[in-house]
């Protein structure tokens, strides 16, 4: 694994500078049913293909951002700040 990720702040860097934050999931409302919480804790889509996911530039600017990555080829199509990606 040696692909590059474009940090929205620092530019293209080696993937080893980043911490993976997993695929984007939506946290249930506080009063959601146990089943909904359980799904949120343990069930992931585990997409083979393009996925929106969290990355943290741990050895850089220490900021979280969202990347659109093809999980089968590790090609990172785009990265954006969370408020852009979520809006």
């Amino acid at each position, binding site marked *: *694994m*040696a*692909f*590059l990720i474009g940090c929205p702040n620092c530019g293209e860097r*080696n993937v080893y500078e980043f*911490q993976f*934050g997993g695929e984007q999931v939506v*946290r*249930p409302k*506080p009063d*959601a049913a*146990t089943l909904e*919480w359980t799904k*949120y*804790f*343990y069930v992931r889509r585990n997409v083979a293909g393009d996925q929106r996911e*969290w990355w*943290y530039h*741990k050895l850089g600017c*220490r*900021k*979280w*951002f*969202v990347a659109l990555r093809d999980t089968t080829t*590790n090609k990172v199509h785009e990265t954006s700040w*969370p*408020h852009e*990606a*979520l809006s």
Partner: protein
Amino acid sequence: MASPADRGRLAEQGYQVTNRAKTVALNINGRPVHAYHGDTVGSALYASGMRIFSRSFKYHRSRGLLCVSGQCANCLVTVDGIPNVRACTERVVEGMDVRQQNAWPSVEHDAMSIIDRFDRLMPVGFYYKTFHTPKAFWKLVQPIIRRMTGLGSVPDKDQPVRHIRHEYAHADVAVVGGGPAGMSAALAAAGAGAQVMLIDDQPSLGGHLRYDVASHDALPGIGKSKGYEAAGRLRAEVESSANIVVLSDASAFGLYDGNLLGIDAGNRTVKLRAKRIVVATGSIETPLTFDRNDLPGVMLTTGLQRLMHLYGVRPGSTAIVGTTGDQGYQAALDMFHAGLRVAVVADARPEFPADLEAAVELQAHGVLILPSHALTRAEGVKKAVGAVVTRLEDGQITMEERQFDGDVIAMSGGFQPASGLLHQLGAGSKYDAVLDETVPMELPAGLHSAGEVNGVHDLSAIIAQGRQTGVEAFAALGGNGSANVAQASQEVSATTTAVSPQVDMAQGAKQFVCFCEDVTARDIAKGIDEGFADVQTLKRYSTVTQGPCQGKMCHRAFAKITAGQTGRSMDETGATTSRPPMTPVSLGALAGPSHRPIKHTSMDRLHRELGARMIDSNVWHRPQMYGSPQEEAANVRQGVGIIDVSTLGKLDVRGVDAPALLDKLYTHHFSTLRPGRVRYGVICSDNGTIMDDGTVTRLADDHYFVTTSTASVETIEGWFKWWMAGTDMCAHVMDITSGLAAINVAGPLARETLAKLTDVDVSVKGFRYMRSKQGEVAGVPTTLLRIGFVGESGWELHFPAEYGEHMWNALMEAGAEFGIKPFGTEAQRILRLEKMHIITNHDTDILSNPIDAHMEWVVKLEKRDFIGRGALVAATENPGRTRLVGFVMQDGAVPHDGSPVVAGFAPIGKVTSSRLSPTIGKGFGLAWIPVDLAEEGKSIQILVDGKTHDADVTLEPVYDPDGTKLRE
């Protein structure tokens, strides 16, 4: 200068890389051998008369030089204690100690070669078939098999460690391969303005042209020239280009995502990231498959050319040549000119190549040339003494044999593009029937290929294609990932044709396909018969292509035999997967140097002066003890002690939403915490498990000071930021761990000590437990927290790290009259354990939640939401099966961290922390035990050093359970 090395040598020539003015002495098996500067271990030993270089992996058959290019495993030796060094590429160094391996007592007379006679007992896949039952038998034979097979032996521990540096490099265009295509591509790209790095695995640029003594007409930009002269011209141009950096003696062993090249450059590993990569790695000559084709003396024609032209070594006296294309003729002619007798050239193709100059010249010299003939058997026991050549009809072997005497059997089974790097990143391949080669195609974006790797063998075409590819690589730099331009190979018509004869299984049992692993044509046929008809499964079953050469010598023959036996085309047969490393790489080159940063606190020098024994604590070095931990602990209980706690993680959290942020992240309330107060808090992940704990101090309405455990600060900083990401929460988190030093002053006399150094009111009523104040201590601006997890009244002082030594010395001086002593992490562990304070991630693990850890009091489920709430609601309703409790031993035993809690001898729980308590004089600690036992006063058994001991469960700290001492 005459030397014993000269007997095996040819006349000196300008194109040779050896310098006969400089002799080098090395030892082989303890015996001196003379070589010349520029020689390899292999060329020097061959010139000295050595023919048997090694013993084979499985059958211990004698093996000699084969490829002379570092591809095959035939010449592996141990050099200066390092095993499996390729003799044919390892250059000689004065005093080098070379030892042959994998044989006893010597490679010349190897007792284990007896195995070769019992090859019938070792059929393909014999590991899967034999020694399975009875089970005990395998234990018996396994060490024997392990000793008899394999290559080399692991160096002794006292071998000097070779340090391999790791370097990072960047280039616009990286060119792999320093032959005519690579040099032309580098020159074209550099000429257009690109920064180029040219990687070549040889000591000097030129590739196969370095040993090409033939004349070539009308080379682009060079004109009529001999091969080695053309190499010299191109080399000089490359060396004078300011835009090209040349990396010689460096093999690119892997191509990874994002155009990252892994390069093994001896004492350095270079990780090169290039915008475009031109792969010009050439092609590899492959062996022919015939009976006893592994005998020493049977060599690839290019290997013989390297021996003769690069090192001036005489290969032998009489040569027998078997070829499937033009290459065999040129090699035969070179040997003829070197003074060898050429007994025969057997060409598998039906027609004499009348327009090939080398063939015509050989014929003019009266050399016997036999079209439609193939080598079918080498004669000899330990070394080749002759060969049998058989007539072919429609590619099939007939009964018409002719026998020839000769000590050099030169074989050329055609060329296979060295396209492994391209395939590592996903390039496809296609079999070209005219070339009889499998060429790469459909290159991934960012990659180019040029020259022989594309199946182009005409030198003019190679140079032209190299130049064109260099221009294309440069042009692609400007565009935004424009589609890879179609390779130039289409416009270059195939100039060579080749044909390889069908392998006839009846021709003998010793027709080796894979020399590394001793796999024969019959083994492959048998594997197919047994149902392993796919190359991928057949590879795993037969171990073919799995040796050190990774298929470079054998994949082509393997694929052809598989295609022939299964009746499928070469494309249908396909290829095994190409993975790094392309060439053998030492583990050190991959592992790199140990790079472990260590942090020292600003008081580190003082700890060492005090004779502290240091211990690793995550990235920090901390004093574990200065003397006796029990005495250090007792001094805290009775007088006053100080401990350097600078390693605590420290976060500065500010902003109008800081209270809301902490309420969300901690299980406890922090928005209700009043400024000037401190509260202990636990952070859970969203599934309710404990991540970390620490104190939170509210310095102002919108300003908190957070401490984390030593190892967690980076994780917790990231965690804080993650929950803010994408929200409109207005808060800012900053890691200030290194900026602040911290000392904990604790004990009944801590107040008296501190009062001498500060105007801050530290009286019982003026500075209550769990409060904070800011003020000067010993003249240094300090945040004072009245907390103390050691169980005594105490203060945690946080102040600028620059004043570490000053503060420490001031406290030691002020406390001298009260008997102040420093204490280390071990005393601290005893003291905090007496107070039943857990250490997160030591007493808890990634499955522990605060409910089961007996810390319900920190969980405020009445808060509408916090991270982990959903799971903790569930955990309250359905508690786990074990709980974390305290225990006190009934007898004098002291369990260890990790001692099992048992019922009978069955483990039912585990001790996480245990020490001897100075307060009660007994072993005590924390343990996870089943819920039904987790009640005050119940009895449990703990296994300590093989014996069970009784302990009483306690839910209260053994020291000051009411916490009155803390508040005094």
